[in-house]
């Protein structure tokens, strides 16, 4: 701090000088109280797209992340330090996310970053945290982020990835000789999910009869329906996210497609199911990282649901749960490391075995992907729903294993 005031004032802007003087002042006041520096708050940056088409999912993430922080603070924090979550709106825009993340690191001096809800945005955050050597727990699905070219020793991937979800859904629904048609959004998410389903179809002996891409954010899918019907598939896999999922399934349903084929999705979104009537999604099968009804078999899910209900009066959602598991894993590692020393926390994350909401999880050594269970859900008919929240049947809870993931060698890591 004092070093800064030693600099000559020439060639420095007035603003910097003022900021420097201010900082020096704060430094002087704080320096006698070394004890207080010890108790400095732990700050976690949380960029997420609060505005935009994924806003509903983003708000759930924030609520869950804040719950994780609250639970730790209620128990006295980490090594006597309080934890604080700094939420920033990344507007679902990679540039905005990079700027906000940089601000969080430079200005707010966060000790770690958790967040992002789109693969492209997540990669942008990862670029920044990797360059600055800051810990980042990513909570959005992406296959590319696992690959060696984007690897950062400071980044840990809490979310499932397309490879895992498509494999689990395909295993539950594809049979040898099944005819599968693919409909996907024309951007990274759609492409990665389509690639996953194709690979799974190859392994299971199912036949891909057609692959149709639609523009991201399309409002009308009616012109695609005759062609899909003409392909005569047994299974239609719809690979898109957010409102695109609700709209495309709604229109497929309007066209009576469900009578002729089983519709599956890589990720069956909790909030999108709520945004349409139950009969629209009825019978649709898809993957998920979390569903509250896990509580009947998994004690940590019950604990999470109860805490969430006590805090917000409702039940947690799938994408919301990522905010909880991601922040909880980070805080557990910080507790183990006894503070925020980056290298120690990274080490603790690498060795961490945690079960905070959905059963056992750990980060794989080579790519830091969280190895965890994948749920396969089926959307319920209205008549079978016992309450407003009773949306899905759990078809399967595929336990986590490294077999689900691409091998370290395949991702380009030395083996």
């Amino acid at each position, binding site marked *: 701090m004092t070093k800064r005031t030693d600099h000559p004032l020439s060639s420095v802007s007035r603003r910097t000088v003022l900021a420097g003087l201010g900082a020096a002042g704060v430094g002087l006041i704080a320096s006698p109280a070394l004890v207080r520096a010890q108790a400095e708050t732990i700050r976690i940056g949380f960029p997420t797209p609060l505005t*935009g*088409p994924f*806003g*509903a999912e983003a*708000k759930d993430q924030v609520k869950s992340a804040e719950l994780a922080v609250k639970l730790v603070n209620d128990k006295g924090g980490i090594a006597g330090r309080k934890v604080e979550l700094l939420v920033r709106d990344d507007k679902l825009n990679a540039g905005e996310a990079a700027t906000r993340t940089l601000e969080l690191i430079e200005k707010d001096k966060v000790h770690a970053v958790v967040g992002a809800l789109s693969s492209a945005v997540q990669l942008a955050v990862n670029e920044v945290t990797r360059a600055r050597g800051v810990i980042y727990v990513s909570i959005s699905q992406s296959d590319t982020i696992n690959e060696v070219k984007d690897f950062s020793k400071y980044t840990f991937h809490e979310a499932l990835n397309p490879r895992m979800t498509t494999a689990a859904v395909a295993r539950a629904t594809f049979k040898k000789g099944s005819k599968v048609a693919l409909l996907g959004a*024309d951007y990274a998410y759609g492409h990665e999910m389509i690639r996953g389903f194709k690979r799974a179809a190859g392994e299971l002996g199912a036949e891909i009869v057609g692959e*149709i*891409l*639609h*523009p991201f*954010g*399309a*409002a*009308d899918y*009616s*012109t*695609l*329906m*005759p*062609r899909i*019907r*003409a392909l005569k598939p047994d299974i239609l896999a719809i690979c898109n996210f957010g*409102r695109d999922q*609700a*709209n495309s399934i*709604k*229109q497929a349903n*309007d*066209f*009576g497609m469900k009578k002729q084929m089983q519709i599956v999705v890589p990720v069956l979104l909790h*909030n*999108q199911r*709520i*945004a*349409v*009537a139950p009969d*629209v999604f009825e019978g649709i099968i898809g993957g998920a990282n979390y569903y509250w009804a896990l509580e009947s078999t998994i004690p940590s899910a019950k604990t999470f649901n109860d805490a969430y209900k006590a805090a917000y009066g409702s039940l947690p959602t799938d994408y919301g749960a990522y905010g909880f598991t991601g922040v909880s894993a980070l805080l557990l590692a910080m507790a183990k490391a006894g503070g925020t020393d980056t290298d120690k926390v990274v080490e603790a994350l690498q060795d961490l075995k945690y079960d905070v909401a959905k059963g056992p999880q750990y980060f794989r050594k080579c790519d830091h992907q969280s190895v965890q269970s994948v749920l396969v859900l089926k959307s319920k008919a209205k008549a079978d729903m016992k309450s407003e929240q009773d949306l899905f049947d759990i078809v399967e809870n595929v336990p986590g294993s490294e077999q689900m993931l691409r091998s370290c060698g395949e991702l380009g890591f030395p083996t």
Partner: protein
Amino acid sequence: MDLELILMQLFSGLALGAILVMVALGLTIVFGMLGIVNFAHGALFMVGAYAGLWVAAQTGSFWWALIVAPLAVGVLGMLIERFLIRPLYGRTPDDPLLLTFGLGYVLVEAVRITFGTDGIPFSAPDALQGVVDLGVGYFPIYRLFVMGVVAVILLLLWVALEKTRFGLIVRAGARDPLIMKVLGVDVSRLWLLVFGLGVGLTALGGVLAAPMRNVSPEMGTLVLAEAFVVTVIGGMGSLLGAVVAGLLVGVAVSMTALFAPEMATIVMFGLMALILLVRPQGLFGRPAGA
């Protein structure tokens, strides 16, 4: 590729075209008669859908929503014209453009605050659910119903504008408001009604679209772009142009879907660029200065 599929695709295209015509009508009427480029068009479309949702929730009937919501939003349109747009007449066209642009944001935020940012379910009435066999393939009954409503609306509009005294005054007012004033016609009242009509039709489009697309605060964004494409291709302000252009775009998108569906949005804009190059005033627009 068999003939059945191509016929079905052609039909889907016409059906989509009918929806696009409905979406563009309000924009083209307000521009043609008042010379105002209404950038709040998409937002008013969305407000129409939410108004429909609200009325349907209160009355339990889709049919009431279909009638009451457009009327109510039409009245909102009149208030907007009277208190926000009227003071700007006589200034450059940029002023109402900027005003409506900002108004669009205000409306979207207001709906977000009132109804939340999540999508809300809206189902077609039971009588219109299901599919019918057209001989070449199945088609949702609701979409056929929308095509019917659009045809009726167009017929009514045509009669009102071409065959009645009111229509004569409106068309004359669009040509030369000063002469109309001299002749003793209350032009400002006329414009109030025309703007209300345009906004009401936009809201009707929103209510009709709600059971096909989901209702969300952002549902108008794409609609604004679609409406502009149709209006520009047809010729700014031309009713016939909007109809021909809407159907043309629908069929173009649908036929593209057979070969390269990911290009569907680009085709729409490509068609618009082509028309602008070859015939800048649009298919049925008056050339500038005429």
